[in-house]
């Protein structure tokens, strides 16, 4: 049943894509309707899939080797649910954010439908070739979405970078599935034999998986495509990409590693290391951004890091037979997949409304929007609190699970091995990440929504359109719900962890105390704040005192860059900023400007220069094609002689 529903939902998404191409502007709303209904049906399927194990189905696809086999287990359903949810909300959001009156509306809707549909099928594909095919289709659809504004060179560049990166990922995936086939003899995800898993093939499979899925998930140092793409795409697309598309990588990694009878320490250690690096550097880079969407993009890297950290803890602990710790790690990591999907989408929706109103992505050109769009501000604030991992919202629950796993590892008996020692680094790493994330989001929320508007656009911003506000409501509710009643998810979590790792135990007793505390806490906080606000609603108002500044201007405000400056300076060793400062000022300084920009170390200082050098080297080879026919004939003769000599061997 679940399989049928999920497939039906996906097909409806595809259908909306088709419809968007044929119906006229006036009735474009139809596409949204289809998309939404498909999403709801799909969600129903996922909910059915949470308990129904292994519902299978076959779609028509007549190619050699490839079978469009669909199989739904709890893990697939778990990953597919956010896809459908964000598909629905994205469509609702886009209804006003990218109305059919806007140019290329049909284009956006078409590829949005394809992306969501294919994405949901990727997660339930049981045949590896089918998996790869859908995987690449998602990538292509996202490429077209990122490059929606082809007139804008930046968008084009971002889209191309994304396409190149994800195609490399796909080719790596080609290697993965073919190697898997040669190892197992089938085109489906079947467990590896112990012999294979421990052989070089096993390690090769692991590294291929790390690269392929790492690029997709945007883990450091494979994240190069991510910030630009998230920044350039239409906001609801960014929400989907950051919320669910990059989770494909996590899903793939979990799926492939679930095939190993035993995951050796070094694999878990690699995952954990990458997780820690991604989380800390991700948030560090985020702090340095002044483009709202790039900031959110780097936070995606951070959260992917947290997820990987959880998984890494799980794999290592399982390897040492510590069931409880493994359970906590896996559960934390996987739950964070949902949480990040929810609050990141929420944040992107909020950011989108702000950008929609101010026509800029520069944080320091906004400000004071909370007074003009209070609901959006409230939504963004919820997201900000949640992503900072603060109680009583959902972010805290997943991070807490990973924390507890880390603590238990320290408390428990000591084991040997560098991978084990890595476990001890989890807690401090999370602590640092959490604190920095908090700083970053206070900065973002404060600079965008609080204080005085810094530009005229910001000052004249109006309330966001209804559909854009509506799309945020379910996300806010979900963030609160998971934070307040985490126990409700305990059975699902133990089921998916069992699928992912074979470890299985209940989390009810672990999560119960959190639930006992969270609800009252949330209630008391809400009461106190609202009581104070209501009591002082008539309080006399005047200009900010600020130690007696008579006429503070908006430009006096502490900007987002200045807020983060000290913290960013700590990371200068890994992310040197490029500063364009006026040199020695003359005695009577004229107008001077200071601008700082944070290049992505891996991309701008590593990859691009390398590629340019490669191109130069390739250019050298061009003299081979010199245009002289005699020379070409010489090649012919030389080849002939060489092959003759070969044939004489």
């Amino acid at each position: 049943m679940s399989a049928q529903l999920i497939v039906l939902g996906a097909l409806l998404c595809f259908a909306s894509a088709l419809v968007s191409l044929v119906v006229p502007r006036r009735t474009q709303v139809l596409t949204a309707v289809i998309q939404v209904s498909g999403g709801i049906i799909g969600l129903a399927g996922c909910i059915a899939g949470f308990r129904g194990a292994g519902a299978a189905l076959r779609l028509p696809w007549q190619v050699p080797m490839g079978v469009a086999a669909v199989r739904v287990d709890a893990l697939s359903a778990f990953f597919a649910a956010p896809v459908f949810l964000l598909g629905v909300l994205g469509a609702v959001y886009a209804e006003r954010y990218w109305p059919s009156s806007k140019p290329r509306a049909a284009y956006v809707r078409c590829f949005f439908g394809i992306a969501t549909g294919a994405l949901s099928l990727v997660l339930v594909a049981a045949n590896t070739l089918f998996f790869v095919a859908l995987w690449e289709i998602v990538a292509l659809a996202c490429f077209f979405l990122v490059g929606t504004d082809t007139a804008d060179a930046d968008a084009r560049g971002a889209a191309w970078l994304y396409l190149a990166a994800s195609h490399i990922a796909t080719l790596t995936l080609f290697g993965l599935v073919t190697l898997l086939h040669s190892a197992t003899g089938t085109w489906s995800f079947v467990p590896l034999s112990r012999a294979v898993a421990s052989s070089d093939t096993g390690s090769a499979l692991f590294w291929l998986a790390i690269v392929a899925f790492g690029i997709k998930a945007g883990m450091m140092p494979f994240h190069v495509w991510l910030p630009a793409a998230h920044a350039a795409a239409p906001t609801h697309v960014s929400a989907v990409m950051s919320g669910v598309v990059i989770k494909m990588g996590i899903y793939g990694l979990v799926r492939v590693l679930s095939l190993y009878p035993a995951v050796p320490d070094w694999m878990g250690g690699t995952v954990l290391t990458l997780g820690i690096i991604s989380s800390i550097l991700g948030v560090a880079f985020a702090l340095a951004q002044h483009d709202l969407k790039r900031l959110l993009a780097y936070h995606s890297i951070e959260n992917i890091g947290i997820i990987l950290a959880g998984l890494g803890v799980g794999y290592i602990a399982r390897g040492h037979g510590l069931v409880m710790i493994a359970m906590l790690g896996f559960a934390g990591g996987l739950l964070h997949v949902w949480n990040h999907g929810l609050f990141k989408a929420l944040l992107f929706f909020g950011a989108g409304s702000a950008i929609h109103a101010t026509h800029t992505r520069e944080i320091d050109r906004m400000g004071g929007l909370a007074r003009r769009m209070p609901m959006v501000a409230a939504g963004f604030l919820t997201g900000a609190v949640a992503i900072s991992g603060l109680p009583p919202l959902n972010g805290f629950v997943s991070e807490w699970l990973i924390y507890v796993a880390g603590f238990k590892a320290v408390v428990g008996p000591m084991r040997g091995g560098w991978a084990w020692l890595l476990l001890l680094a989890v807690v401090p790493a999370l602590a640092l990440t959490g604190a920095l994330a908090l700083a970053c989001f206070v900065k973002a929320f404060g600079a965008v929504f609080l204080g005085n508007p810094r530009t005229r656009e910001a000052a004249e911003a109006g309330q966001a359109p209804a559909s854009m506000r509506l799309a945020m409501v379910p996300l806010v509710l979900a963030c609160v719900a998971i934070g307040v009643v985490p126990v409700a998810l305990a059975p699902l979590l133990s089921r998916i962890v069992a699928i992912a790792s074979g470890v299985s135990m209940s989390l009810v007793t672990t999560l119960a105390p959190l639930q006992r505390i969270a609800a009252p806490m949330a209630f008391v906080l809400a009461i106190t704040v609202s009581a104070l606000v209501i009591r002082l609603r008539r309080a006399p108002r005047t200009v900010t005192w600020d130690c007696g500044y008579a006429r503070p201007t908006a430009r006096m405000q502490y900007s987002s860059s200045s807020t983060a400056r000290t913290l960013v300076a700590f990371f200068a060793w890994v992310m040197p900023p490029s500063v364009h400062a006026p040199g020695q000022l003359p005695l009577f300084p004229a107008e001077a400007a200071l601008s700082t920009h944070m290049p992505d170390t891996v991309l701008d200082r590593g990859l691009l220069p390398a590629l340019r050098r490669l191109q130069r080297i390739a250019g050298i080879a061009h003299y081979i094609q010199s245009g002289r026919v005699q020379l070409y004939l010489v090649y012919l003769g030389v080849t002939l002689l060489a092959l003759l000599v070969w044939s004489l061997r």
Partner: protein
Amino acid sequence: MIVYAIIVPLVAALAAFVVPNERARPWIVAAAALAHTALTAIILVTPVTGEPLSPWLRLDALGRLILAILSVLFLICAIYCIGYLRLRAERPNKIFCTVLLIFLAMTTTLVLAQHLTLMWVAMEATTLATALLLYFNENRRSLEATWKYLMIGSVGIALALLGTLFLAYSARLGLGQPTLLFPELVERAGRLSTPWLRTAFVFLLVGYGTKMGLAPLHNWKPDAYGEAPGVVGALLAGGLTSCAFLALLRIYRIVDAAGQGPFARQLFVALGLFSMATAAVFMIGQRDFKRLLAYSSVEHMGILVLGIGLGGAGIFGALLHTVNNALTKGVLFLAAANIHRAFKSKRLEDVTGAIRRLPLSGSFFLAGFLAITGSPPFGPFISELSILTAAMDGKRYVVAALYLFFLAVIFIGMGNTVLAVVQGVPPEDAEGHAFRESVFKTLPIAASLVLVLIMGTWIPSGVTKLLADATRLLGGKP
């Protein structure tokens, strides 16, 4: 029955030569192509009859496959020609149309030929025919391209002839009399004289490899494809190369039957990888999108021989890829031709924003790019993947790694140029040109794109059967 597939085009060629009316000739070509396709269809559906019309002309499983590709591609191109020659009304098309039809006849002969020398004669004839097609534009650049093509092609073909004679000599040593009929050679291959056979194979590989455009024998390709009309490019890259590949396959059969298969496959793998590498190097930073397509053709010829060289599933993959490559090249070259005509240039300096200027052709070009680089849901995705499978199953990990690496580099190199062409905003003066996307200039492209799509989503069982038979013939398992 089969022989009509040769006669009809020849008659049509004669007609095209005598008919004075410039407007009518393209229609004759189209009609002949239609007839040819119809004939092919009938031949393919009718079960194989035991008795061939002559020992020299017979249609075996390989031939059926290639004939199908050839006929469909030619039909597509012929229909496109109607629109194209209407656009180029200023140029006399008498020679062009006539030679097109002779080309069809000769390639068909080549596909049917069961005798090495007959095959060689047909190949030489196509060379000469192509030379005249290349020269359609009659300007200095096309002249230069033609000359190079002629020289390199002729030398190559001469070497192929020498190889043919070597084969005959080895037959004479082994079998007593120098037969050159494929069936005999294959069935009595065991007794051929090995040294002569190996030498013969090398000469034939170089000779027909030149026609096929394997690096480092490919140097005529960029010039020829760059200067020829797009439709000729499509016919060369999709049709002629496939025929040359067929020739190599027929020879490979003999060599394999003689127990020299490993040696031949070694050479195939080496040349295949080298071709991919060369293509990769020259695609990076390529400023001319028609030359880009030429190098893409070099790459895919490399992939074809690589597939054969890997054996096993690779043979099936290679044959499947022959189909996909031909159809996709049709899309790419014809779309490129439209863009070229609309912008009056094929350099990146002048061509950008093709999708805005030519919504259909631009999109087709982009789709073709995605298809040829092996993106689903298009056909090449399947074939390229199955060739990789062959490498992995054969534990040829280094080959597999290189294959993937070259594919990645080529994707980036090609994408840089293609996206620069289709995306962005077209220069103002581009609007001025009279070029419009008529039915004849877009429908054929759409058709072949649809075929590529079908090859990736729902391969007809008939095609699968054709492929399976051909694979069995080559000793691979379908």
